[in-house]
């Protein structure tokens, strides 16, 4: 008999509501709002309640796609990241660091957002950092 609940944070916005994700026999189930969470106190919005649905969705992208002249092509993470690094460096060298901007996200953790702005400022030399929650 295999049933586990994993305490986590809703990935959808910056509020950070607390939820348990149940795993029954290896399958992910509907979130259970965490009653002890100081912010959400056992409540979720419809996005939180649906947070598990994309995991097994047929529409989910499971490999990185690179945009080419003839549409999107599947590639590996190594190739995709190499391409991103090469192009970012090219743009910086040709047009200067402020030709670049870095968008961070409410769906990432505080720490991930910190690393992203560090990359922008310390590695590429630009303060162009913005966030999807700047509505």
């Amino acid at each position, binding site marked *: 008999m295999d*049933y586990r*609940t994993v305490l986590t944070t809703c990935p959808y916005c910056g509020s950070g509501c607390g939820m348990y994700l149940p795993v029954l026999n290896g399958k992910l189930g509907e979130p259970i709002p965490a*009653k002890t969470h100081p912010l959400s106190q056992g409540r*979720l919005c419809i996005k939180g*309640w649906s947070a598990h649905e994309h995991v097994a969705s047929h529409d989910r992208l499971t490999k990185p796609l690179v945009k080419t002249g003839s549409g999107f092509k599947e590639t590996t993470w190594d190739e995709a990241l190499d391409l991103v690094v090469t192009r970012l460096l090219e743009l910086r060298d040709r047009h200067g660091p402020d030709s670049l901007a870095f968008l961070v996200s409410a769906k990432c953790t505080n720490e991930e957002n910190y690393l992203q702005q560090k990359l922008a400022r310390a590695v590429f030399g630009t303060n162009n950092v913005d966030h999807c929650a700047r509505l």
Partner: protein
Amino acid sequence: MKVSKEVRDIAEEILRQGQVGGVLGLSSEHGHVGPHLFSSTDDLGTLVLEPRYMLAKVCRMILADFPGERLGVVARGCDERALIEMAKLGQVDLSRLDLIGVACSEAQARECACPHPYPRRIDVGEPVQGVAFADTECAQQASEQDLVARQAFWTHAFSRCIKCYGCRNVCPVCICAECSLEDASWVARGKISPEISFHLIRAFHVADKCVGCGACDAACPVDIPLTRLYAQMREKMKEMFGYEIGLDVTNKSPLTTTLEEAPLHGL
């Protein structure tokens, strides 16, 4: 706490006997409490009883996925009533469950306005008197306010609804694979707040099943007192049909029987 210790001891005994695949209860880890399947006696140190979660729904899912196995479950009165209602609908086989019956305290019973704050067999805790419908806020509102005032109250409450579907999602007796509340012919897509009919559809659908566990109230982000609404439906079921929800698995809902099977005398 003494009560948690008693539950742990019983769970340990059940696990040692080896007849169940696990005992479903609540576990406190990382400062948070959530549902947990205790499959070995080693984890039982984290077993707690509060804050209360509706475990009957989790129970149904586990039983469905492990058809050959038995399951232990820490059950309060509302969990047991929900399991009985699910059994009536063929969703749960009660003979595969070992319930550890926990009686709620007087404060807990008052908080939920619970008419039956204990399961049929109490293993831990002392039974306290249930709250009579006449003593609930719901009954007080019905006697103190006229129709216009009550309509204004509910219109205002429903206007806050953000259609998160949390009330339906947490509900142990909401078990339809296809829900009317997601059917565009009943509920307009993309409209917030929804029409009052959204709440009335739900009230009618749970009228003969709502066990008054209060999970919907607790999950509502905008504090709509749904159990107050459903308590009135439950009281009507009792008045009109003499039907009490969740007490007897052989007592089928009058709403699913025909008039020939159960004639309505005097109506």
